[in-house]
């Protein structure tokens, strides 16, 4: 069947079974690399994207329930040439080792900071609890999210480039 998904501000048509998890539609049909397959169980957060302002596990969310909703991935935050504040902060803080978990971390942090760019360290830690990192990059991720909040406050934006 054919479903229209609004991804990073653009309507896109996907031909796939309605039970297809959003993750597979984003990665395969729309060829986006940001959302990652980690567990397919909602336990690791590598697949995290933002839907209508809230972070969700795209591996557990079938596309059938997403028509008309605004879906955002790390690709929607900016580009290599013009990175958004969250991306800029992760680059500045060199907040990656292998980098596989990082886009999911960034999207969950983005959802938090769009509501509260002045989030405290405790709030950031609590918000990121669903997301796993195995390289142990946590200290840098925390610094990067704090830095992203500062950049957003300086720019007075919700965080898109």
């Amino acid at each position: 069947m054919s479903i229209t998904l609004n991804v990073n501000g653009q309507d896109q048509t996907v031909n796939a079974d309605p039970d297809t998890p959003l993750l597979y539609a984003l990665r395969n049909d729309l060829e986006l690399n940001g959302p990652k397959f980690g567990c397919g169980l909602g336990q690791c957060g590598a697949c995290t994207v933002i839907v209508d302002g809230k972070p969700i596990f795209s591996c557990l969310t079938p596309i059938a329930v997403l028509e008309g909703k605004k879906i955002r991935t790390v690709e929607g935050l900016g580009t290599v040439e013009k990175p958004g504040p969250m991306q800029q902060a992760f680059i500045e803080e060199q907040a990656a080792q292998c980098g596989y978990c990082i886009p999911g971390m960034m999207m969950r942090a983005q959802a938090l900071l769009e509501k509260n760019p002045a989030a405290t360290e405790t709030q950031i830690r609590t918000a990121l609890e669903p997301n796993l990192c195995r390289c142990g990059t946590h200290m840098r991720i925390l610094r990067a999210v704090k830095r992203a909040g500062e950049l957003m406050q300086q720019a007075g934006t919700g965080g898109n480039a």
Partner: protein
Amino acid sequence: MDDFKKPGGITRRNLLAGGGALVVSFSLTQAFGQSENPPPPPPPTADKPTLPGALNDDPFLDSWIKIDGKGAITVFTGKAELGQGIKTSIPQCAAEELDVPFDAIKLITADTFVTPNEGFTAGSMSMLNSGTAVRNAAAQIRELLIAQAAVKLGVDPATLHAEDGHIVGAKGEKLAYADVVGNIQLHVNAQPVSKLKATKDFKVMGKAQPRVDIPGKVTGGQAFVQDMRPEGMLHGRVVRPPSYHATLIDADIATVEKMPGVVKVVRDGSYLGIIAEQEWQAVKAMRALARSAKWNEKATLPDINHLPETLKSLAVQDGVVADNKTPAVGVVKTVDATFTRPYQMHGSIGPSCAVGHLVDGVTTVWTHTQGVYPDRDAIAQLLGVDKPKVRCIHTEGSGCYGHNGADDAAGDAALLAQQVPGKPVRVQFMREQEHAWDPFGPGMVTHIKIGLNAENKMAAWDYELWSNSHGSRPGSAGALVSSRYLSKPFPEDPQKLVITPLGSGDRNADPLGYDLPHKHVIWHFIKDQPVRQSSMRALGAYCNVFSMESAVGEAAILAGADQVEFRLSHVKDPRGIDVINAAAKNFGWTDWKPAEGRGRGFAYARYKNHACYLAIAVEIEVDKNTGKVRLVRANVGIDSGEIVNPDGIKNQTEGGIIQSMSWTLFEAVQFDRTRITSVDWQTYPIARFGSIPDSIDIEIVPRPGQGFLGTGEGAQGPTAAAIGNAIRDAIGKRLYDLPLTPDKVLAAMAAPAAA
């Protein structure tokens, strides 16, 4: 994918054939006076000089660096980017010695058709082996460029130097590398000694160089093998048996073949695979096939409730790791302790993945293996073809921390690609497959006795360990898990006891860091592998250093000495003393005040006894109601030799501390007598943000002019021991059985005090 990564693109052979230039007669040995001071080299062979780093294995300069007619520089490494940052640090070495900007270097990593064979990217040896080779090759090529420019300009080479991609003379002469490189034959043997730049003259090395891969990874760039989508790609999945020794009775292949999008269902013996057009179709077909499959299973796993006893009861072969043949004298007090470590898993966040493609009889596999050449050999044997008929190209995956499922996925991609010639097949493991079929870091038991003399110094050290090999990597087909379930299965490689300075299960078991009148170390090598096991970050050093440094902590208490002072009084190596002092000073060791529910711990080790020096001081908090332990802060002193990318050293070390903290406080693979039952992140929990420390501080002790020592695994053992020592400090009881979980903390607190 760039040209180098397309089958039929640039290969090593046609790169090498591209030379044909004038051979410059030039003795590098005569010209160079300065040498670096490398760590212990491998034993020299009779007819071959010892060359720096991996030049020893592949001595041709153009195996490592090629400069084309336009002056474009390409560096080749047989090592792979694993998240440790070599795509940044290896070009730093080349840029420095060739005196070009960092951005001028193009790097090609492990590819069996293009790059040198550097075995496995493991053991914290990327910089020691490959970094050293590239740096020396670059320095030697720079001198060849200078020599050729001198001929062209008719001047004394001593009046010339390299500067920003040019050879520059004292009188203002200036030639671009492009102007001279055409006349230089780089297909020449490297010389044993290079004219390396002095640290004070560094422009690129020693500086915090931003990682080249991070901008792409944070903006949705194609970065991982999981992100590959070659034209016409199909999606593969495997159905693994439910347990190691299961055999397939039956599966409903006919029904699954009719499911939407299914291209092929493969059965070979007990091996089951699916190929489908869409990924979600492949997942659904895989699940249907798995549901339909009937298996015969065997209960072959050890009793997890008596793991230490079981490990000690298995057949062993004893090997002497260290024996200074001096009897223990004057011992008046003894620490006697037994430590245990469960099976623990690599736990990559992205399950393993590979893309296989059979074209004109050549199977290309894009894989995140740590060893493209050994994996190539295993896959060739698995497919029954000659080695040149398989090409393995390293393509990044999620961090692996050792031998995880990467090679198995490569094997499956190769197998399934044979079913659909001309079509690329992407095989992606599911989470439960990555978990249950991981070649785990093996369970271990250690027993240590430290004798103190009347002066409260360590006079005697007796240590024994029970462990598997920590190594079942490819090289032969039997190392690939699927090979064991084919109708003509391949046998696993027999496990052998091997004792070398590098160490494996016995890594770091020789207490070389301490000055000891008597030492005796035995490895009770376990041959049987009831649970699949292989190499996980630091191998045996994790449990050995945990055991040894815990016992040293106990010895200091028995001696009534300060933990730092006690260690310093037994360490002779000034580089060890420096990292101990750095960690203690930055922690504020001498000013630290005890507080309720808090403890401090210290540990020190030189990784592998010949790699980086690392000392760590930690503070922990213990919730005495729940038994929960949290690492609050850590201060590290590390000496990795000459610094290439200081931020890379910090990033790796921070990561090592957090990962080791997770192993130490949370992790143990679960199984019943038949099946592995740790199949997801609920049945194998790891650290989440709630358990992350407040701060980690790393001081790098600079060692200008010294060789590279490597970094990646140095923190694993010391972190575990420092946490154990801090728990001892906080609750007055020691925990011996990893992981140090709340139930064990509570049990220890409830136990009567030691006499």
